[in-house]
């Protein structure tokens, strides 16, 4: 887990140590995991390499599940978002539309759906 953190420069709380400069992020989308998604992946985050400046969420999910098969089926199933997770862009907007576009300046948060306690 520590290796992963260092490798992707994301601290345990998902907020620090990450180099947010454009050069560091070029053609990568930053993804952070919370709750069960983090358990399944075994890491707080990942930088998904992309070919262009933006990517459709459906494509992102496909690549992410290829990289982390353990996200299936609890988090993503057959290319769809499971009801057990929620996705947020930059922590501000929640997304459910898999046709939505995500650009490399954005961070995608993948979290357990049930936020309460």
């Amino acid at each position, binding site marked *: 887990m520590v290796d992963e953190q260092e490798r992707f420069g994301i601290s345990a709380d998902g907020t620090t140590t990450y180099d947010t400069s454009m050069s560091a992020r070029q053609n990568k989308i930053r993804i952070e995991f919370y709750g069960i998604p983090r358990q399944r992946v075994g890491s707080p985050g990942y930088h998904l390499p992309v070919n262009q400046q933006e990517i459709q969420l459906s494509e992102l999910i496909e690549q992410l599940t290829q990289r982390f098969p353990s996200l299936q089926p609890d988090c993503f199933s057959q290319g769809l978002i499971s009801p057990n997770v929620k996705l947020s862009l930059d922590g*501000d907007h929640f997304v459910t539309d898999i046709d939505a576009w995500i650009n490399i300046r954005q961070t995608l948060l993948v979290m357990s759906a049930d936020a309460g306690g």
Partner: protein
Amino acid sequence: MQKNTCPKPAGGYHGRYLRIDLTQHTSEWIPLENGVLRNFLGGSGLGVHLLLRESAADFAPLSREAYIAFAFSPLVGSPLTTSAKFAVVSKSPLTDRINDSLASSGFAIAGKRSGCDGIVITGKAREPSILIIDDGHMRIEPAGKLWGMECSVAEDQLSKRLGADFQCAVIGPGGERLVPFATISHDGRHAGRGGSGAVLGAKNIKAIAVRGSQLCAWADPAGLNQFAKTLSKKSFGPATAKYRELGTATNLLLFNRLRSLPTRNFQEGSFEGIEQLAPETLAQTRARTRSYCAACTIGCEHLYSIAPQDSEGPSSSTRIEYENLFALGPLCGIKDSHTVLTASKLCDEQGLDTISIGGTIAFAMECVERGLLDAPWLRFGDGQALLRAIRDTAALEGIGRQLALGSRRLAKQLGNNAIDFAPQVKGLELPGYEPRALQTMALGFAVGSRGADHNRSGAYEADFSEQVDRHNISALSATKAIETEDKAALMDSLIICKFLRGVFDNFYAESAEMLNLITGWNTTAAELQATAQRIVTARKEFNIHCGWRPEEDRLPARMMQNALNDDEKARISPEEFATAVKVYNQLRGWSDEGWLDPSE
């Protein structure tokens, strides 16, 4: 004792409650008609009905005449997972408004087997006592040496004294000393919020012990068993994985990331030392075990050893929830995990609500910073100060006498507009959801009948969705606040655990189905929606009897005036907020201000 029962109670019910007068040393059975049970179900709903019936709003919460109800539910004792729960309902000594708090496990099952759907207690025992209900027969015994004991020790001792087939709910030293946020404990679970422990303490009751043999019939046992099997199977699935694998404490990192983790008395929404407290970190250094309430297949309780594994000597363990970590950690600026776990254990043993004591101490720390309170040692980030403050509160010593007032009363005592930053609504300290960052939840807090509360309003669910903008409250927030408040009212009255909520495809329809299998009624989803609304309205009615005023339905002034220090986007528009409260009241069918009669 007069025997009295409803002629033919529905399945899952006894059709009566046991009314105990401690002053008179008497008990009587009071029938509960099927219509009443169908209207209020059990748990929180039945409890508030019983209090309204007894005109409990008329009495000061710690007076001899005050009432406290232990309400069971039609599901208790059934094979339905997470159904072993009971509600404790009274006028709160912290808020002077309705308080219903829930706890779980064997007490619910044994209490219902004593032959009643609820136990209503009034009066006051002559000396510190144990109230024993043995198969429906009431007796009172001196508490003796149990008085003064910590919660788990008292429960253990009482169990040894009476026999293991008795189930006991106890108060700690906090309840004995009438701290208005004292808890009632059973089997490591707590009816935590609002001070029901002080209500029992004021009645000189250290513990209630129940056992019984009276079972309720079910309308369709085969159908119920099948339903229960399916529900249990679903409860092993991904919808509850978060609770099984991590527990609620896993919220810490996410809430911190979203700047919705209340920090240093709600001045910031994120905390620099949070990773030290996260269960993901604790699990690397501490032994962890899981615990289940009786009749639960989820097992959300995660207990951690207090000291790290490499430390010397034996270490006890404590349950870790999001709320106790938040309240005793970031809210007080404490990042040392050993201190926070020790503080949590201390609260559980002394019988103090972790959210209220954490909120009150954090408020006092800010008062010290501002020169309003003369306790220079009580500083944000000082773990030893936190522990001392908790001990002093439970003992009512030193500054503890002031902390034991709760944040609202302490603010009023201090003056100088301290009330503006006291973290409370209606006197109940806010749980760990920063209202400015979660503005539908902010509305849920403001209008909640028991005060700021995440268990009676799940409005944060909307904030964590595409449906609303969590930084901008709107009229839609009112609809969402009502939906989640109604759902919570039904769950708390049936009663089933809220951590099961993700497994239902159609919550109201499936609830109607399980209720019908037990009772033999022909309830529908629509009827249960109306029932939930009736229960919410009954709570409001109780509050109005207590003297509720519309100006109570608001947040502390600081939250309405200032953005979070670390998130400029987290700012509430007072105008939009007022509109949302008005729309909430209108959608409830009440007046714009919130009176039950829309013409008022």
